[in-house]
């Protein structure tokens, strides 16, 4: 009888925090990811770009275990994410938090309650400390004056900033941002970029940012990955992206389409 295949092991490089190996994912008959390999080191900021519907958010959701791959392996902080059951995910989710594209704020909670939620759920019971941390997080996104508002009373940009405050409040090792700048005015967008940079410099937070905002990429990214047709089409620094002779990359970053009037 053949011996069972050995379980895949994470990278031996201690500095590697996130590792995706050969990720394939289909929804129905549509293949979204067809072999994604990606490695991210502690404290690194990676921007994922690519046309809509190419699997950028799906890739991100694999990292935090919201989606499981059809094949391939996901490692976060040395843990094999896709082998864990839902109730065993707590250690991963203590390390990684996420900002959703639509912010995913809880409708029945105020801004303050939304931002405090992960802190309270993580076991912090000191009300004064919770309040202090909530104010600190909301000040970082310029929303400290809107504590008592419900999400329905906020603009799209304010909702997104509340979502960011909720994502950063627990000071996780890694934060995944799904289009943090979309729907924000240029000033609001810069506030978010500066906050991501601050998290990177002060707390050495590892960040993955799905974005279409090319200006942000050149401000905040250490590396850029471009997804195209289910694969990583380009991986390199922002300068390498800019200098790439690849027509697909150049068309994307310069916003050129084939459509003519």
């Amino acid at each position, binding site marked *: 009888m053949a011996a069972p295949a050995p379980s895949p092991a994470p990278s031996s490089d201690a500095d590697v925090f996130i590792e995706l190996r050969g990720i394939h994912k289909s929804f129905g008959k549509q293949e979204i990811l067809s072999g994604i390999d990606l490695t991210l080191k502690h404290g690194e900021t990676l921007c994922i770009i690519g046309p809509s519907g190419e699997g950028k958010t799906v890739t991100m959701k694999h990292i935090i275990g919201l989606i499981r791959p059809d094949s391939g392996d996901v490692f976060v902080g040395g843990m094999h994410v896709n082998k864990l059951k839902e109730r065993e*995910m707590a250690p991963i*989710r*203590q390390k990684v938090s*996420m900002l*959703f594209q*639509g912010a*995913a704020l*809880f*409708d029945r909670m105020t801004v303050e309650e939304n931002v405090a939620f992960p802190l309270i759920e993580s076991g912090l019971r000191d009300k004064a400390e919770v309040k202090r941390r909530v104010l600190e997080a909301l000040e970082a996104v310029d929303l400290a004056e809107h504590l008592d508002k419900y999400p329905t009373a906020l603009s799209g940009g304010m909702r997104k900033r509340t979502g960011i405050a909720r994502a950063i409040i627990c000071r996780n090792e890694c934060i995944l941002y799904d289009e943090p700048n979309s729907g924000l005015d240029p000033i609001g967008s810069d506030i978010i970029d500066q906050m991501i940079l601050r998290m990177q410099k002060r707390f050495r937070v590892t960040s993955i940012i799905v974005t279409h905002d090319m200006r942000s990429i050149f401000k905040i990214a250490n590396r850029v990955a471009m997804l195209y047709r289910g694969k990583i089409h380009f991986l390199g620094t922002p300068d390498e992206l800019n200098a790439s002779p690849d027509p697909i990359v150049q068309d994307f970053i310069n916003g050129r389409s084939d459509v003519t009037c």
Partner: protein
Amino acid sequence: MDANGLLTLPGRVFFHFLSYLGQLAALAGELMIALRSGVWRLKLVAQQIVAIGYGSQGVVIVTGAFTGAVFTFQSYAKFKEFGFETTVGAVVSVALCRELGPVLAGLMVAGRVGAAMAADIGTMKVTEQVDALRVMGVHPVDYLVLPRFLAMMISMPFLVAESISFGLIASYLVTSFGYDMPSTWYLTHMIDHTNMEDLSIGMIKGFVFGMIITLISCHQGLAAENGAVGVGLGTTNAVVISSLVLLIVNFFLSILLNYVFPIGTV
């Protein structure tokens, strides 16, 4: 649909049904784990008791009262033909305790609360609030299903008791003021022929119906997809499936409980 599609249709329907039962069983399993090892959020349970128990009283009372009244009104005339009109109180009471009280309360709660559960959770699902819970290390069954389940278990027997009580009060008023039947006759027969076993059956049924409504409605919410259309479909399914399952389960539960608490022997 081609011939091949028609031939495979019964098989596909059967496997779809099996898959649905599997999903319900998986949710029930997660609920058991949450009951045993999850965190019981008592504040959420209290909020749900207000929404489910307190909020459903109006519909349950009106349903119970008018069912008791109309049942009395219809049966009195027929019973009078045989000279049994004084037994109306006993018949209405036993019927309300064993069947009408729990079933009608269950159907009304399925409509009001089941729909709200599916819509609430479904909206959270399609707007990624359920995923947000997961990202923050909170299991959706612990946070969304368990408090609703506990609140339903606590509220449902009270709602059934209210439905029965107001049905009996309405029945009494109809016989006393509508037909000039001496209240002593009505009350004596009712008390003589209604026992704790009849009430126990009503309470047990209420408890079981509460479990069915919560499980089916929360499952519809958690399975919702495709935005507002999916939430609407889940809400409709929650009410329809809960109501049908409740009526079917009621039949088998009645047979089982009649073995445990035989009618007319106490």
